């Protein structure tokens, strides 16, 4: 099993290793594997080594937080002052933000060592990371398969030990699904639990930053560090979680009420269903009360999600006009022509599709039939989840209906790819927290992920159940230790 944050922090404090030595080890791993995996798109080794030197000084002075000196990575849509942040889109080519995202600011203040920015679907729009303008990252478990998306690079760097942990963002499953495909842990916190300031917007009412790690405890440690209200994000909430969540993980599931909704299992690969049901049996054997519940509105959660997310995206991406940052068309006949050419050259096909769908559902004559209706059904989905959490502490579901797709999966149309988000989008629609934890592998050796879904701001229960499963199932993160397989 991979060394976790707590143990690395302990070794740093005992001077068994220095932060600079640890960082150099990771840089060597990256230099060896990243040319194959394409998991990082911007490397920040000079800054990492300076941060590591500073971390060593802080540790020497006995004044170091747990994350001090720990090498990590950020998704390329999280703003980093003076460092490239492109959302893996040509339209943001060369863009260097002039401020730090709050989540990164908090980690930096704790002495985090940033190794680089990770590959992702362009503007986080995709489920395979293949829409990146830098080409797809490869799944370290088997490089013939995708990492999932959109935080595919963030999952791959953790899986291949090219970072101790990473941050991703999750609008419709973009942390949990790649975590599932790469066999690592991915936490999507409650909407508002982590500031979105400096996260380049896709669907603002759905986006949330969260950690990808090799253990539930590490996910709790990172979440502890990045959570909290922020006056620069009016949708963030300064919720009182009480003690550190990482220190409250040890809880028995005895007497816990765990819900299983059949709607999450419609059309699921039988191998995945079987693994999830084995996990449910484990909880039951250990004293959890399993409740069979219904969430009928989940049947239409997918179109609700795509209508709302694309409507918000069409508005959010209106700012890319080639004037203030990024790519600009080189020849044009008017300002209008410049903007249209810049956007047409700068955005990839999937981003264009989503901007067009968003424009369509917000346009005159279609607004009521699509966008307004989607917002009303969103309320119904919220009510259904509220009712479920009246009688359940958490829900168990698959993270995805399938394991990783083969690279360049030609058979998949855009809509077929959208359908693969069926298990994750309801969580974003309702703004509730969920974690994906490794739950075994399929007959091809590809990781399967299990989702544990909780009530708003009840990350504690989600993490406790996940930790119980991790400790008692014998299944650890499917991390690949030996370098990418050809």
């Amino acid at each position, binding site marked *: 099993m991979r060394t976790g944050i707590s143990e690395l922090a302990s070794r740093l404090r005992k001077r068994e290793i220095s932060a600079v030595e640890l960082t150099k080890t990771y840089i060597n791993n990256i230099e060896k594997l990243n040319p194959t995996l394409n998991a990082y798109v911007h490397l920040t080794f000079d800054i990492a080594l300076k941060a590591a030197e500073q971390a060593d000084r802080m540790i020497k002075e006995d004044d170091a937080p747990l994350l001090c000196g720990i090498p990590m990575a950020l998704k390329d849509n999280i703003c980093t002052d003076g460092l490239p942040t492109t959302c893996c889109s040509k339209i943001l080519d*060369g*863009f*260097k933000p*002039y*401020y730090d995202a709050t989540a990164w600011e908090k980690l930096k203040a704790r002495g985090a060592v940033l190794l680089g920015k990770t590959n992702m679907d362009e503007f986080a729009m995709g489920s395979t990371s293949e829409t990146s303008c830098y080409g797809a990252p490869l799944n370290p478990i088997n490089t013939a398969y995708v990492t999932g998306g959109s935080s595919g690079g963030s999952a791959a760097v953790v899986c291949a030990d090219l970072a101790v942990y990473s941050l991703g963002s999750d609008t419709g499953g973009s942390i949990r699904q790649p975590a599932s495909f790469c066999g690592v842990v991915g936490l999507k916190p409650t909407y508002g639990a982590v500031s979105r300031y400096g996260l380049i917007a896709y669907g603002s009412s759905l986006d949330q930053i969260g950690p990808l790690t090799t253990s539930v405890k590490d996910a709790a440690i990172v979440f502890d560090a990045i959570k909290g209200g922020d006056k620069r994000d009016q949708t963030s909430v300064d919720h009182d979680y009480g003690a550190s969540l990482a220190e409250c993980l040890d809880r028995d599931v005895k007497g816990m009420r765990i819900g299983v909704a059949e709607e999450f299992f419609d059309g699921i690969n039988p191998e995945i269903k079987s693994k999830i049901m084995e996990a449910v049996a484990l909880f039951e054997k250990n004293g959890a009360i399993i409740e069979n519940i*219904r969430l*009928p*509105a989940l*049947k*239409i959660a*997918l*179109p*609700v999600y*795509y*209508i709302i997310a694309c409507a918000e995206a*069409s508005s959010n991406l*209106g700012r890319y*006009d080639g*004037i*203030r*940052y*990024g790519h*600009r068309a080189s*020849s*044009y*006949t*008017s*300002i209008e*022509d*410049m*903007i*249209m*050419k810049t*956007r*047409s050259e700068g*955005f990839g096909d999937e981003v*264009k*599709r989503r*901007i*067009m*769908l968003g*424009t*369509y*559902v917000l*346009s005159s004559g279609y607004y009521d*039939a*699509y966008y307004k*209706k*989607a917002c*009303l*059904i969103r*309320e*119904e989905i919220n009510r259904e989840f509220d009712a479920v959490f009246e009688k359940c502490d958490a829900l168990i579901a698959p993270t995805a209906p399938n394991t990783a797709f083969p690279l360049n999966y030609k058979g998949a*149309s*855009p*809509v077929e790819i*959208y359908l693969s988000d069926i298990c994750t989008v309801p969580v974003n629609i309702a703004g509730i927290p969920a974690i994906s934890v490794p739950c075994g592998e399929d007959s091809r050796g590809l990781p399967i992920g299990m989702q544990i879904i909780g009530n708003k701001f009840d990350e504690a229960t989600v993490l406790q159940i996940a930790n119980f499963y991790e400790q008692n199932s014998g299944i650890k993160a499917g991390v690949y230790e030996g370098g990418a397989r050809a």
Partner: protein
Amino acid sequence: MAVTKTEIEKLARLAKLSFSDEELERFTAEFDAIIAFADTINQSIEGGTEQIRSVGARMVPFEALRPDEVAPSLPNDKILSNVEGYNGFFSVERSKK
């Protein structure tokens, strides 16, 4: 409902995107499937969509809003540091002769 090329062209103008003829053909076909997918929002759900009621926009009470106070901001030169060739103006190609 089939989406026509004319509708796609209108949407593209609204979205400030332009497509070549070949792209337009492809997008029209793909968009048809995407709209069919979005239309599944109209399928009935158990318990009936008639249960779904308008809750209206969740308005923030006026008194809950913070006062609008001017606070220090980032300096202009920093904010405009990504503008190529910025010299007090945004330079673009001459478009009127």
